[in-house]
């Protein structure tokens, strides 16, 4: 006992000695964290991996905005072209930005945008450029392991290697990953389950950028292409506008939503051309005939896990070939673009037309997409719009041309655009449009509004426009948000989205309605203290589960109330207390979460420590609650908690110098109080070397 007391005293003294030091590493915006958690809770198929990894990549290599270089600033992918130009102009004319507050005063910027940018930018003054071209290499090696009492597919070792090298105008990168349970083998493969790489050239003249290898595309408002598609679900985001159009190297570990080939970008932000061609093998569920001949694809498979027989069968079973062209033209206040793409699949899609929700599903092996977009404004008002069509070919493509559709309709009652409408191009059911406005009538008020219509038969496999549901079509809605500085230090955000789903879809056998409402208040009397209260409500019509015959529609509502108290009592110590609750109607299911975070860095040693303890009690899975965690570099962790659970983790970061950083994380989730519950543990380790 005496030993224990003396250990505690020693530990306390050690903390007191080490605490009064310096640093408060910027973390992600709390608004962003909350939204990630809520969107995950609401959508079964939301996958924020690509976007969050893109953001984590920015954190590793913050954008040096004081360069005043549009290319450098535009690495902040969520900024629009107008914002990039405004910021670059401001720095060129007025010199370096000294504080974040200065940014919020610029036209087209506001506090929420600046808070979103904060973790990913550097305000360091720019050193004069020397004659030598610099080179920089960054290698990040991560290994994590999960253990629990039960055997399941999620156990095992996950390994990830990321490497990036820059020298002058050239750079190249490599990402290699094995998910838990996936084998490392050189037999018929490159060793790792997922391997991605690129070589990039960035020019200063007419040739803007060339990428060979894996890349991501963002164009217009995302009707055709948006690699950060998940951002579109964020209702209380600072703006509904998509980020600027670009082609960027792909560095995420999401295994099915990228392009592999070559992209060429010519010109600049106001006048330019983007050309790209890609051929990539992706996961899909294949249909076979009795003699094991592949006849078509029933659906694509996401997730990138390849452990079970069916997952391995789906792995890289479909080749997607895409060619695209984008033309950009504009002036200071108006900018527009036209995007066209053609997609071929190695096997035709043959949806199950006995299910009503599939009558508008993509069928065939070819897709032609066209879109046009425009952005205009002066800073206080910004208008944006994009319209596009997606024309799916019938089953007469090269691969499936000789096939008779086993599920073809013979009654003549098929809707247009379905499999049996051979040779028709039904434009009226294949279009989509989105338009919106962002207005900043005064320095304390920002208003966003967006309307959208995606026809049930509109298809685009890499789209990512603002919408409530998943997929590319079948939604019509209006969304609006208002950000107000109601009083000094008091910030209020209110947002609403109402949408209609005109065609049946999974769990809804009739047209349905949905809505989302968010109201958030934030009181920040100083840089070191923050209180935040948020209420969100999300409703959606589904079929009543217990009935036979024609399904009755029932509106399911999830309400979530969250409270966050964040304080930095010392420069290096941060305490975050969080309480949240969820209520589901009509089931009446409820859930609660209490969470305490602690982070601390030290002056004497280059160590940073994070600790969390969370308690959760929910009535079931529907009322589950998500809790964002700090995680390793280039990674994110948002575990879901349901039933009676405790969750805790500790993470250490040792940054010996600018060249090397080591992170270790140990976490456990105790669900043994639940029937069949387990005690799950995870250990993660990471080394990042830069030279």
């Amino acid at each position, binding site marked *: 006992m005496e030993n224990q007391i003396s250990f505690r005293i020693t530990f306390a003294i050690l903390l007191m000695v080490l605490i009064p030091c310096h640093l408060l590493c910027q973390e992600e915006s709390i608004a962003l964290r909350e939204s990630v958690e809520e969107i995950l809770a609401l959508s079964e198929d939301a996958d924020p991996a690509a976007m969050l990894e893109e953001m984590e990549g920015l954190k590793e290599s913050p954008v040096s905005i004081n360069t005043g270089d549009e290319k450098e600033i535009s690495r902040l992918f969520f900024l629009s072209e107008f914002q990039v130009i405004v910021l670059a102009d401001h720095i060129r004319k007025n010199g370096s930005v000294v504080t974040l507050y200065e940014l919020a005063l610029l036209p087209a910027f506001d506090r929420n945008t600046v808070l979103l940018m904060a973790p990913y930018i550097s305000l360091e003054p720019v050193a004069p450029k020397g004659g030598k071209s610099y080179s920089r290499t960054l290698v990040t090696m991560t290994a994590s392991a999960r253990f629990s009492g039960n055997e399941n597919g999620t156990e095992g070792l996950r390994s990830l290697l990321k490497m990036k090298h820059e020298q002058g105008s050239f750079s190249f990168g490599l990402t290699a990953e094995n998910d838990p349970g996936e084998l490392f083998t050189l037999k018929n493969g490159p060793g790792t389950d997922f391997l991605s790489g690129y070589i990039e050239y960035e020019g200063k003249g007419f040739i803007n950028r060339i990428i060979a290898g894996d890349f991501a595309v963002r164009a217009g408002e995302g009707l055709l292409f948006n690699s950060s598609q998940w951002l579109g679900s964020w209702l209380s985001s600072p703006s509904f506008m998509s980020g600027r159009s670009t082609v960027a190297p792909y560095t995420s570990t999401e295994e099915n939503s990228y392009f592999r080939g070559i992209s060429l970008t010519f010109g600049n932000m106001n006048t330019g051309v983007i050309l790209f061609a890609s051929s990539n093998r992706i996961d899909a569920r294949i249909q076979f005939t009795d003699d094991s001949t592949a006849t078509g694809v029933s659906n694509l498979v996401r997730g990138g896990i390849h452990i079970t027989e069916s997952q391995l069968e789906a792995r890289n079973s479909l080749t997607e070939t895409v060619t695209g062209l984008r033309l950009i033209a504009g002036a200071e206040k108006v900018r527009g673009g036209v995007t066209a793409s053609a997609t071929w699949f190695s096997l035709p899609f043959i949806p199950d037309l006995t299910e009503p929700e599939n009558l508008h599903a993509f069928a065939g092996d070819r897709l032609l997409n066209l879109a046009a977009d425009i952005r205009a404004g002066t800073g206080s008002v910004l208008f944006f719009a994009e319209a596009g069509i997606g024309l799916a070919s019938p089953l007469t493509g090269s691969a499936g041309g000789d096939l008779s559709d086993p599920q073809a309709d013979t009654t003549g009652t098929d809707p247009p655009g379905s499999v049996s409408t051979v040779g028709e191009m039904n434009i009226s059911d294949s279009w989509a449009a989105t338009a919106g406005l962002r207005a900043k*009538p005064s320095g304390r*008020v920002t208003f966003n509004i967006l309307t959208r219509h995606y026809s049930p038969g509109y298809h685009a496999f890499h789209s990512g426009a603002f919408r409530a549901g998943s997929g590319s079509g079948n939604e*019509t809605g209006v969304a609006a948000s208002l950000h107000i500085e109601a009083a000094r230090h008091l910030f209020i955000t209110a947002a609403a989205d*109402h949408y209609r789903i005109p065609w049946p879809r999974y769990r809804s056998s009739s047209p349905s309605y949905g809505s989302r409402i968010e109201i958030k208040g934030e009181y920040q009397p100083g840089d070191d203290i923050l209180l935040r209260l948020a209420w969100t409500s999300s409703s959606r019509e589904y079929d009543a589960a217990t009935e036979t015959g024609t399904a009755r529609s029932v509106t399911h509502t999830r309400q979530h109330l969250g409270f966050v108290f964040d304080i930095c009592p010392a420069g290096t110590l941060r305490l975050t207390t969080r309480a949240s609750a969820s209520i589901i109607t009509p089931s009446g299911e409820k859930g609660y979460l209490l969470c305490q975070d602690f982070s601390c860095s030290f002056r004497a040693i280059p160590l940073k420590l994070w600790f969390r303890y969370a308690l959760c009690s929910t009535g079931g899975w529907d009322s589950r609650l998500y809790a964002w965690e700090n995680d390793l570099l280039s990674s994110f962790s948002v575990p879901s908690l349901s039933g009676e659970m405790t969750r805790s983790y500790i993470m250490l970061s040792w940054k010996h110098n600018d060249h090397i950083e080591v992170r270790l994380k140990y976490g456990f989730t105790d669900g043994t109080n639940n029937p069949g519950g387990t005690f799950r543990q995870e250990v993660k380790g990471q080394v990042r070397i830069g030279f």
Partner: protein
Amino acid sequence: MLRWNAVLLLLFCHAAGLNAGEPLFVPHGAGAMGMAFSVTATPGHWNCFHNQALLATVPSSGFSVGLENRFMIPALSSKAVSGILACRPAPLALVATHYGNADYFRIFTGLGSAVKISNSISLGVQVDYISERGAGEYRDVSHVTFETGVTCLIPPALTVGVHLFNPLAPMNTLPSSIDAGLNWTQSEGLFLTLTGSKASNEPLSVQCGISWDVMQRLTLRTGYMSSPSAFAFGIGFKSGSLQADTGFLLNSMTGVTSSVSITWLIK
């Protein structure tokens, strides 16, 4: 002070006894529609009929005509005329509306006035006569009731308003409603509004709106109401003593309701 306590007590006593019926009366004014009718504390010609206490702040006399086309169905359209005489100390307001078609229609008339009780507080009242006529054997009915409102300036930029319709609900078959709202003038040409509205046997509706004079003559408005859930949009245009407004309500189930009004202000 005693007078004020009595007024507030009267309002809240009536609010506590609200019951019965559904909201029957179509609110008018395209400007108000553009802000999802969150105008309980917002000055304006048509807004005076949403809270009669606002009459006390009307700067000049005026006349207006308005048309509302509910769900874009002509049979559900409503026409209205109104006039305000800005005489002091008690302005006088008159409104008449017609809703329906040849087989069923409702005529609503109201006569109201308001007084300033202090520099920051105003009180208004309006007597209403409502007549409903149906074709065939349906019985024609008529009602007389009243509505009242109060507004209060807390700081000069913030106005609070409360409005009560038909406190006589126990004595007639009309519904009652109570609205409480805020109007915050954030800067010149920009104000934000928030209203909570409760009608008998209807869920509480929270409405908010924003109005922005983007140019000297052009005003953009938008708003949101929670029940029935709808987005609102509107545009206003001023030229001399004439003002034209249009407003739209978008509900995902019932579609679009449009409204237009033209107001002539005698300066």
